[in-house]
């Protein structure tokens, strides 16, 4: 992992309410790189986020809305966001219900630009 991308992950985790950010292989559901607070189950989030993104991609195709640019999952106790990155990877962030989704999205899109 390049230092630049590590810094980008760190910047995402500095957004209010974000508990962690991960770069995940979309095909494998495995973590490429992460910056996670203690208690976040990184491998589980990575595997399930990749599965979710794949299924949402199928839905997007069926609905003829093009490729996925941003996924936002709002749960009762937190938020998960996913942005497809380069080379078959996904950028995933996990946060509490207070997560600043707008700012997190901006940082994620910025991070995608520097992804390896």
């Amino acid at each position, binding site marked *: 992992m390049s230092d630049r991308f590590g810094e980008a992950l760190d910047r995402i985790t500095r957004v209010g309410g974000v508990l962690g950010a991960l770069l995940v292989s979309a095909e*494998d559901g*495995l973590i490429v790189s992460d910056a996670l607070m203690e208690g976040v189950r990184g491998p589980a989030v990575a595997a399930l986020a*990749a599965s979710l993104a794949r299924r949402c991609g199928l839905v997007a195709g069926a609905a003829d809305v093009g490729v996925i640019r941003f996924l936002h999952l709002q749960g009762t106790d937190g938020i998960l966001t996913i942005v497809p990155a380069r080379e078959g990877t996904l950028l995933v962030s996990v946060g509490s219900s207070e997560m600043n989704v707008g700012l997190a999205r901006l940082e994620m899109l910025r991070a995608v630009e520097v992804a390896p």
Partner: protein
Amino acid sequence: MSATRVVEEWTLEPLEHFVTESGARLTLLMTPAGQVLAQHGFTRAVDVMAAAALGAAVFSSSGEIAYLLGDTEFATVHHGGARHGIFLGGFTMPHGRLLALVVYGDDTTIGLVQLFFDELVRALAAVAPRQERQRPVLAADFERELNDSLASLFGR
């Protein structure tokens, strides 16, 4: 009819849950020597026996590489293919070591298989008998026991 067949009844529910959640196409639970406890997805006895023997051999071989590297063994081994991947995971039950061989397709990921494999191990540990019955291995019983196991695995 369920595609999951078991020799050891306590493995059935955890294995069925694992297969459903992970999207695995084929699964074998076996001893490191290749003796099968349960299987999902196989339709022919010869396939089970070949997969069990080869899976146990692969895991054993990789364990030797781990030993050369100063590790005791690799907890899991993964081979990725263009359309299928195989996953081998070793784990310890109260009565000894077991091995899972999982074949998965492009409709799931190694990450999901690994995730639900960890759950499978926890679920099996919760229901596993504390101690295996100690039985002498007699040549006279071997063929009958083998036939009994194959009958359980294929419902014949």
